[in-house]
């Protein structure tokens, strides 16, 4: 194959490879996807033929343009340099390479390929604004090289330029570049870039320890986390790299008056701009357990039938939301109210990222309306608490449960049982004696299945408890129902005297409660998730 042949001949083609990786966005979550025109993964934005011809052209361009070749080398080195492997760079490459690992100072670049080795960490990038210098420091310690174009433009530099962003249809490379750079900025913030790097460094250090595999479970955990964070970081870096390359290409095309290459690169930039928006969304769900399925639990507050009715409305809202997204919904546990509604209920929501989204719903939901259960039709306020529990996919992270620590009781049992009674009711409650945590299930059709299902709830609850215990290490965890205080209101639904739903955390509001109660809650979820992640200004 031609591409492979070029690879062998030309090591610089390495930098192009990341662009061929188009990860599919939001598996199992089509509705949240802002653009319907997402390419299936593997559908390369640049056809293979064109790619390789581009590479060939580049290599011929490179020989004519020393500054570009230095850029490519930078790209190569950054793509080779894993967090702890920068020293793996070949030593006989014949070109001077930064050894300190500090990024190229923009003001130093003159088009020559030699860069002084001893550049101070703190001076580098100082003209590109605070963010850049912060990054510089960090990357300095990371010994990663900040990628830049041949004339020294970095992603931070693009941001600092504050080029106007026009509509996508405007064929203006600066506008595209600026939009993409902003997305990269958002993505890094959402990924908590700095913490990510610190964590990666810590994990790498652990991986390097010779006694690591003495505890294989822990070792597996560390190496899995390292791998997943690493791939996340690499993906962003590759994206940055790709942006800069296209800019180089455009500049080059202009110099050479190559209309083909220019329009090619412009198209590629536009592609990037679109996928950048998807990546922004994707980055919102980068929490450790975000991709898990989950349980959603709703509990009615005080206030009798009206409040139990509200709890069942909230539960219905989630069922419909989940169904809209193609998630599997199973009722696990349900305690109906005497007259209407539910006292509490648990549903299982099966599908990718169910937890990542649903976790935005944790807290107390408040309803104001004229109660249909009040003969005087007075206005009532009621509350429902919502808890969301991830169902950890990785069984090795599960809390170990000893069979002997469990007590299993038949629910609503009484009387002689056995042959005396024929009932389809076979609910059980499992109590974990050491913690007092219980779980029950009554909606399966056999006792055995009720028990199995209650066991998964119990497992998830115990896992969540353990996560809460480790909360300092494991930044994100959602509260269980017992932890949610009734003061912790997150959203108000008013049906009377006016109509609106307002999120108290983001102030996001809509004036159509009906559609919200029918499960149209995505905009609430997204606005909360983004506000929660985006308030940290500096990627902390």
């Amino acid at each position, binding site marked *: 194959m031609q591409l492979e042949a070029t690879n062998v001949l030309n090591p610089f083609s390495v930098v192009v490879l990341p662009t061929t990786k188009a990860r599919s966005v939001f598996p199992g979550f089509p509705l949240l996807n802002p653009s319907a025109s997402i390419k299936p993964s593997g559908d390369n934005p640049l056809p293979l033929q064109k790619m390789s011809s581009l590479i060939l052209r580049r290599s011929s361009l490179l020989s004519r343009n020393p500054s570009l070749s230095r850029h490519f080398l930078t790209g190569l080195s950054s793509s080779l340099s894993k967090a702890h492997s920068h020293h793996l760079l070949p030593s006989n490459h014949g070109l001077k390479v930064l050894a300190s690992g500090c990024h190229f100072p923009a003001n130093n670049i003159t088009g020559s390929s030699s860069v002084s080795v001893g550049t101070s960490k703190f001076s580098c990038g100082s003209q590109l604004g605070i963010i850049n210098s912060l990054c510089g420091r960090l990357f300095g310690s990371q010994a990663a090289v900040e990628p830049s174009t041949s004339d020294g433009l970095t992603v931070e530099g693009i941001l600092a330029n504050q080029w106007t962003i026009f509509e996508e249809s405007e064929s203006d490379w600066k506008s595209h570049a600026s939009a993409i750079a902003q997305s990269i900025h958002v993505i890094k913030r959402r990924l908590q870039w700095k913490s990510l790097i610190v964590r990666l460094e810590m994990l790498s250090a652990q991986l390097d320890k010779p006694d690591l595999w003495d505890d294989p479970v822990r070792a597996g955990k560390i190496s899995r986390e390292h791998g997943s964070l690493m791939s996340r970081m690499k993906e962003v870096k590759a994206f940055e790299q790709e942006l800069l390359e296209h800019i180089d290409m455009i500049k080059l095309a202009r110099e050479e008056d190559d209309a083909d290459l220019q329009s090619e690169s412009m198209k590629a930039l536009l592609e990037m701009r679109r996928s950048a928006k998807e990546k922004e969304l994707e980055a919102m769900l980068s929490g450790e357990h975000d991709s898990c399925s989950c349980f959603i639990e709703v509990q009615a507050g005080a206030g009798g039938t009206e409040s139990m009715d509200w709890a069942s409305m909230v539960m219905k809202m989630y069922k*419909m939301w989940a*169904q809209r997204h193609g998630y*599997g*919904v199973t009722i696990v546990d349900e305690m*109906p109210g005497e007259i209407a509604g539910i006292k509490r209920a648990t549903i299982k929501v099966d599908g990718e990222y169910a937890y990542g989204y649903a976790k935005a719903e944790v807290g107390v939901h408040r309803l104001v309306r004229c109660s249909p259960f009040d003969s005087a039709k007075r206005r009532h306020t009621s509350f429902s608490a919502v808890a969301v529990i991830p169902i950890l996919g990785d069984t090795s992270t599960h809390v170990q449960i000893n069979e002997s620590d469990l007590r*299993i*009781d*038949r629910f609503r*049992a*009484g*009387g*002689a*049982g*056995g*042959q*005396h*009674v*024929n*009932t*389809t*009711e*076979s609910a*059980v409650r499992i109590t974990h004696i050491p913690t007092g945590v219980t779980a029950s299930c009554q*909606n*399966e*059709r*056999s*006792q*055995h*299945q009720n028990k199995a299902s209650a066991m998964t709830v119990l497992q998830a609850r115990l896992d969540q408890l353990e996560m809460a215990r480790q909360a300092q290490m494991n930044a994100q965890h959602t509260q269980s129902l017992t932890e949610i205080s009734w003061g912790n209101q997150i959203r108000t639904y008013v049906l009377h005297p006016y109509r609106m739903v307002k999120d108290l955390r983001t102030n996001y509001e809509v004036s159509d409660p009906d559609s919200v109660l029918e499960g149209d809650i995505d905009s609430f979820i997204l606005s909360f998730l983004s506000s929660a992640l985006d308030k940290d200004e500096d990627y902390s």
Partner: protein
Amino acid sequence: MRLGLARRSLSMFPPILTRAYSVQPISRTSISPPPASLKPQTPLFLRPPTHSATISDLLKWQKWAKTLASSVGSHFTHLDDGPDTTLLHRELNWLLQDALENPKLPLSHVGTNEVVKLRAEMEDLYVLWKQRIEERRPFQYVVGCEHWRDLVLSVEEGVLIPRPETELIVDLVGGLVKENEELREGLWADLGTGSGALAIGIARILGPFGSVIATDLSPVAVAVASYNVQRYNLQDKIEIKLGSWFEPLKNVKGQFVGLVSNPPYIPSNHIRGLQAEVAKHEPRLALDGGSNGMDDLLHLCHGASSMLKRGGFFAFETNGEKQCKFLVDYMQKECDGSFCDVDIVSDFAGNKRFVTGFSGP
């Protein structure tokens, strides 16, 4: 024979509409070969989806059925510990699931004019639900199956609907065979197998050489159990025999490594007072344990030691604490040392339910 008549065709899928005939107790002496017409019914969820209805018709039925169930309130519960509205609503959902070709379909998201495929006619669904509420026909006979452990067993009038309590016997056996190869690879007996529940549950946890012989006096039970065994493709592991208790097992005396049974244990004069679903619809042969309910248990007790190999395991289900204690006492006093490690095990409701032990001193 009466049973044959009860099964006479009425409509295209007759058995599901079989009226809730109370199956008359079969006299214990009249062991006749199963009549040729004894063909087990296909549970609703396995019938071909050859019928259809619009969503709006289905929703109409659902609404009607829900209202009917709501009218019950806790009336049955007060009357005889029967089902209340909540439970009936849950059953209604299950009936719908079993009747729909695609049970996962959320009806609320489909246009009301759309047509869905059903496994029973719309009219049948009305009749079935009426039977459930008005005649107290057990839900499991209505849909023709019972979910038991991880199994879905076919059941019909004439066969006891397996109880959740009984599931535990399989767990007990499971715990034993995990650690004991002889038990895992040996021959087991399930006496009075009914739908075949215990035999199938146990056969699935035995090793490749383990097998089960199951017996029942009721030809309907034998037919249904055979059907269930085939559904789980266990015909090589389970043999079903018609006959009274140990009688069909004469030629394998002393060869069993395990023996389980849930024999009839209700005292005769209690039966009339039981919940309507049981008293009016389940076979008396499966329930009636004689004047104090111990007739069959004692009979099994006597036979067990000669059937079992040394070290073989047995588990009997009983009516509760009284019978458990009586049985343990009896074994210790009367069976002079043919059993050891005799124990009482409770069910999840906290009732002393099972007597277990091993043969030989």
